[in-house]
């Protein structure tokens, strides 16, 4: 009896936490579907209101949010791919080779330390750097910056995953005639695939959501991402809540669906490697 009661209490606590987590998300969705008069009605209309798609039309037909969406997707996917490719190779080297003078451990620490750079510290110099190489206001500049931003994370996560894989498996493959990289691809990578997936999801979320660099490095619709576009609806006289929330809903949906679809991997991936250091 006591056990059942305890179970109920726990369920209630967790359910409350879920409610707290989701209520603002729900509110955002309703705001995006309300006319201005309903948005600011007192008392708030949580459930009953006349839905309208006007804000979505305004954002994606009249304004350039469709273009921002494509830019965001391109930048997030390509920067994640680059970071995974470079970072995985580096992580493998750090996990499997002992370099002279503890160079491997030192490099690992240095790579991690570059993630400690607060973005605001690098924003101005990167703006000037991108200007000098004529990459300002291009998707490429964002891809490069996000790749660099995600690299330390990828290296650190993947190093952890690689350390988990027993060396013997690889050596067996090499006895069978595989090269080192062949063994990496055929034997090791499939084993760390959940970890790779978890890492990729994190990189995607970070790139998709990033605001500061996108704000500093882009100038026109040609390279603007969704977060910058959304923040741009705060005008001098008014805040376009409808457009902002409509775009916000669209910005959160893909990442939410994607992340929920792979959430099992997220936990498993994390428990495999990174967490064990």
């Amino acid at each position, binding site marked *: 009896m006591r056990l059942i009661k305890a179970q109920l209490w726990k369920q209630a606590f967790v359910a409350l936490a879920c409610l707290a987590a989701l209520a603002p998300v729900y509110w955002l969705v309703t705001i995006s579907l309300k*006319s*201005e*008069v309903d948005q*600011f*009605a*007192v008392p708030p209309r949580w459930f009953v209101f006349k839905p309208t798609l006007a804000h979505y039309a305004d954002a994606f037909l009249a304004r350039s949010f469709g273009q921002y969406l494509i830019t965001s997707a*391109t930048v997030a996917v*390509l920067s994640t*791919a*680059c970071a995974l*490719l470079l970072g995985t190779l580096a992580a493998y080297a750090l996990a499997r080779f002992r370099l002279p003078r503890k160079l491997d451990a030192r490099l690992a620490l240095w790579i991690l330390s570059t993630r400690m750079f607060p973005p605001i510290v690098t924003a101005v110099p990167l*703006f*000037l750097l991108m*200007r000098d190489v*004529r*990459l*300002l*206001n*291009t*998707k*490429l500049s964002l*891809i490069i910056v996000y790749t660099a931003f995600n690299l330390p994370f990828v290296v650190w996560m993947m190093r952890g995953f690689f350390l988990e894989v027993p060396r013997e498996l690889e050596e067996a493959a090499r006895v069978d005639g595989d*090269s080192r*990289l*062949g063994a990496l*691809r055929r034997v090791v990578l499939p084993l760390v695939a959940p970890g790779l997936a978890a890492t990729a999801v994190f990189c995607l979320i970070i790139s998709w959501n990033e605001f500061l660099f996108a*704000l*500093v490095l882009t*100038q*026109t*619709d*040609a*390279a603007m991402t969704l977060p910058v576009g959304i*923040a*741009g*609806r*705060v*005008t*001098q*006289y*008014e*805040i376009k809540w409808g457009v902002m929330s409509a775009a916000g809903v669209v910005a959160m949906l893909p990442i939410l669906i994607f992340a929920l679809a792979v959430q099992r991997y997220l936990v498993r991936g994390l428990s495999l490697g990174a967490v064990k250091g």
Partner: protein
Amino acid sequence: MPTRKAYPLSIVLILTLTLLNFAGCGQKGSSKQLTLAVNSGVEGDALKQAARDYEAQTGVHINIAEFPYANLFEKELVDLNARTGAYDLVMLDDPWFPRFATSEFLSDLKPFYEKRGQSGPDDDFVANSLALGHHPYQTGALYALPYVGNSQLFFYRKDVFQKHNLKEPATWDEVLAAAKLFNEQDAQSAPGGGKMYGYVMRAAQGNAAVADFMPIFWAFGAEMFDPQGKPTVNSAEGINALRFMLELGKYSPPGYASFNADEVSAHLLQGTAAMSINWPAWISSFSDPAKSKVIGQMGFTVMPGAKNPGRAEIGNWLIAIPRDARNADAAFDFLVWATSREQMKASALRGNPPTRKSIFNDPEMVAKFPAYPQQLRSLENSRPRPRTPMWNEIENAFGIFLSKANSGELSAEDAMNQANAEIAKILERGK
């Protein structure tokens, strides 16, 4: 065997190619192309639409870079300073202008006029507006043309004033008395039975607090600087003006120390506040049933006075050509076209107050925008914010202390003394 080993290499290759491809489509250079930096809002929207019309007429391709108000200044300043040449035309809020002009970031417009055999802009522009584009103010060379002729107006609920047999307020004392009266007697008179506050102001740090304070500050006889350029915000008049603002704040909705223009407007539109200082851009919203619960009930008049006659703060949008613009001549053609009588009328019809007298006086326009006579009166009588390149920093510091006083953190006297000291430091650094 070799094919398998080449696998990672081929990925690298494909990625590199994709990336190079992206680099290619970044910046194209062609003479028949202009890039405009505009404010995201009604002013920028009007210029954007004008640009589309211009494209259709002339075949000149126009790129639009649109930024929120706060970021537009940063973007323009950083890009112009870095001499990227990214923009051919920039929209500037007038208090930013001294910063750009003193840094020599803008093109003198005189040579362009001379190339056309003209000496300068025609005299249809409101003098107060055109003065903003000169550096030094009013007297120097011309670097920008005024596009949007905003100056503050006093908004009040005609119906509420009528109910209490009051005429529109002419002095700040009358405003205070009315605010007190409404606050006490109209506790449940907002649509839906909510409380209606007597007054609503915005006192969020930065631009907002300063803009709502300046008309009171000036009316009370205070000045920001003495003739030698020393800050004098903590003069007896200045402190009195802030005391008055705090008094008025008692009849403003709770939390007004963090309000920006959007919150003020929300209160006016929802009918939960009776008076406010606001910009003309909002006038049209009050007759839009999707936004307003007070259709036909809002009145607009010039700024109330006190010791001095009331004067509004001017807030015009200017358009200028950066020094490093890639297509300065084409940019000038567009600038003259966009500020021409005909085009400014189009912009006015899109909701922007003009800067030309002829449009304010056009009977057809007055029929559409009944507040135009008051707007012109307010504009011709308006004052600019102090013309200093350090204005952004000064406004930021001043606004922080005003906001702190309004949120109850500091007394009026402490706030003004601290603001004065901070402004003095900023000026010292700027030397």
